[in-house]
């Protein structure tokens, strides 16, 4: 894997990332506006004339409705141009597609694709252990998001694929998941237990049998039977899965792909974002853009300490006089106090972001201001996009 960014080179702007890359992965912790950012980036790409698709994971209901994603769907559907280009100002040739990941059926499709025949596929798909993997195993959603990306890339139908990532606590589960799951599918112990025997099944060694009995004692034999049946059925497919997972990781590390780190200026989100950036760097994957949502404005010249002191004086002076504090002094004191609060917040956010930006190095940075309303229609998404490029 090569480092896509040359040291010392000027960072590519988000606009140029959207024009030149085929894969854009939005990552970040939960609750920072990742899905919204992904949607806004895809819309911008489409408006720039690209055939864009956004893969969302778990969009908020109203955003999902806007994108026509009331239900999980495994195929991308096109969004009518009239909806994202009401004023007909976008470049010609652009298309916008959206998809809400259905991890379970994506996994099923993958099994069908790699099975030698229909019979093997149906044995796997009907197995209880497999259903657990496809339906609820943590990491499956991440794995399938990457699988979907790979698949969309392979079709050649799109020249910009923007992927939202699941809101995992453990930053880069989506990078680890394919490897972790292929390791699971490839489990040595269970393969050992099923050491191939031309004449029927000879269950492994004596030690392995004891081991198996012990596990069965804890979880019950039915569960173990299910697991064994799965590995028997899966035999021979693990190489295909592993190869594909490796190809997926190669694509993510290539020049075609860019990682966009999404965060908010809140302390905890910045801590998580820093962790993400470090982990991406460990995997030789560079963050090429940082998007900070919900940034509060600075008020030039305002000094919180001075403002607060003055507010205190106004109130004290008023109180020292006969009767109540005059209304205009109260109003002014309140406004000073408020400006001090807001400026202090903005200063704190700026300090958090300085630290993060210094850590990540020279990348494109976009700040999206705190908006009065949640973003869930095309107008609002376009407004967000104007802050991104």
């Amino acid at each position, binding site marked *: 894997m090569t480092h896509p960014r040359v040291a010392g080179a000027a960072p590519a702007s988000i606009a140029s990332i959207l024009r030149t890359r085929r894969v854009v992965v939005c990552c970040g912790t939960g609750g920072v506006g990742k899905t919204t950012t992904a949607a806004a980036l895809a819309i911008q790409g489409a408006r720039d004339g690209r055939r864009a698709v956004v893969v969302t994971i778990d969009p908020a209901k109203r955003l999902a409705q806007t994108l026509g994603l009331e239900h999980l769907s495994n195929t991308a559907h096109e969004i009518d141009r009239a909806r994202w280009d009401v004023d007909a100002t976008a470049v010609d040739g652009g298309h916008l597609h959206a998809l809400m990941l259905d991890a379970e059926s994506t996994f099923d499709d993958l099994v069908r694709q790699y099975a030698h025949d229909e019979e093997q596929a149906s044995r796997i798909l009907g197995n209880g252990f497999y259903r657990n993997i496809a339906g609820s195993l943590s990491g499956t959603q991440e794995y399938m998001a990457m699988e979907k990306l790979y698949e969309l890339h392979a079709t050649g139908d799109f020249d910009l694929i923007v992927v939202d990532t699941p809101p995992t606590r453990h930053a880069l589960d989506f990078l680890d998941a394919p490897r972790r799951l292929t390791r699971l599918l490839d489990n*040595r112990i269970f393969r050992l237990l099923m050491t191939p025997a031309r004449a029927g099944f000879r269950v492994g060694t004596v030690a392995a049998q004891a081991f198996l009995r012990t*596990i069965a*004692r*804890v*979880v019950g034999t039915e569960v173990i039977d299910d697991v064994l049946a799965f590995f028997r059925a899966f035999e021979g497919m693990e190489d295909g899965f592993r190869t594909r997972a490796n190809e997926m990781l190669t694509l993510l590390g290539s020049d075609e792909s860019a990682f966009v780190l999404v965060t908010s200026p809140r302390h905890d*989100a910045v801590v998580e974002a820093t962790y993400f950036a470090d982990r991406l760097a460990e995997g030789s994957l560079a963050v090429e853009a940082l998007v900070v949502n919900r940034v509060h404005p600075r008020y030039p010249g305002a000094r919180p300490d001075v403002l607060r002191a003055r507010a205190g004086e106004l109130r004290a002076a008023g109180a020292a006089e006969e009767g109540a504090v005059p209304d205009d002094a109260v*109003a002014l004191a*309140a406004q000073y106090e*408020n400006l001090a609060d807001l400026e202090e917040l903005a200063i704190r956010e700026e300090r958090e972001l300085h630290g993060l930006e210094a850590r990540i190095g020279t990348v494109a940075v976009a700040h999206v201001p705190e908006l009065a*309303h949640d973003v869930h229609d095309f107008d609002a998404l376009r407004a967000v996009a104007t802050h991104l490029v």
Partner: protein
Amino acid sequence: MDLERFCATSRVVIVAGKGGVGKTTVTAALSVAAARAGMSVLIVEVEGKSGLAACFGRPPLEYADAELRPGVRARTLTPDDALVEYLEDHGLRRISRRLASSGALEVVATAVPGMKDILVLGKVKQLEKGGAADLILIDAPAAGHAVSFLLSAQGLLDAVRVGPIRKQAADVVELLTDPARCQVMLVTLPEETPVTELVETAFQIEDRAGVALGPVVVNGCVSTIAGLDGAVIPTPDATGDAALDATGDTLAAAARFRLDLELRQQEQCARLAHALPLPQVRLPFLFTADIGPSEIDVLADALAAGVDTLEPVTRP
């Protein structure tokens, strides 16, 4: 109702909410409020990574208890920890490490979905039964996963018919569904999407998992400043404040920004109250600093004051 009585409602309180709403902060504030009321508190962190210790200005938590401040102890309890401990408790010490290192553990955990969650909750039950503290606070996994976390035991009872794991699951269900032993405290922000998601989560927790819900904590509510009016454009010059270098327009715009925000937040609190008939405890948004011990004290005061205004809970 005073805080002591509130905390005596159930020994286990699971603090849950969507990522980014301040679950960990609320957990810390509640622990401080309870400790001040004279209770011993144990915080259990189940994801192995949170800013909880940092709220108290302490190094990250470990599997062994650590005292964060007088009356408040905390520890981690990740699924892997719980599984290894479970196997050791069941005389399987010899194979537990081998299970973990060979990857077979992953296979077993996958074969029995929710098993890890059950082991964590089973351990919580053990702490509760053993009287580890007057109040045990669980800093739960983020929203969507919180529901599956709470449903895991029920699901396992359906899937596994025999064995010690089934017994464990039955014990966990018993704990979760007994309002005198366990309740969930949901945390949200006064914003549209978090409120919508909280309402969905609340119904799932109550209807599907059968766990009792305590008051909802609305975190980050911007406080009102008496006399703040965005329509008044003051003239700092007239009051001799030119040196402040803040124009009347800036002041008025900033005032309107806050008043708008307050209004939107009130709308969301009202929407929440309408959709979910649970008492709300509101915690203030802190403009000034990062969350550290003194901010947690401020939030603990607000939490205790908020709980004071609640009606005592009457259980059927």
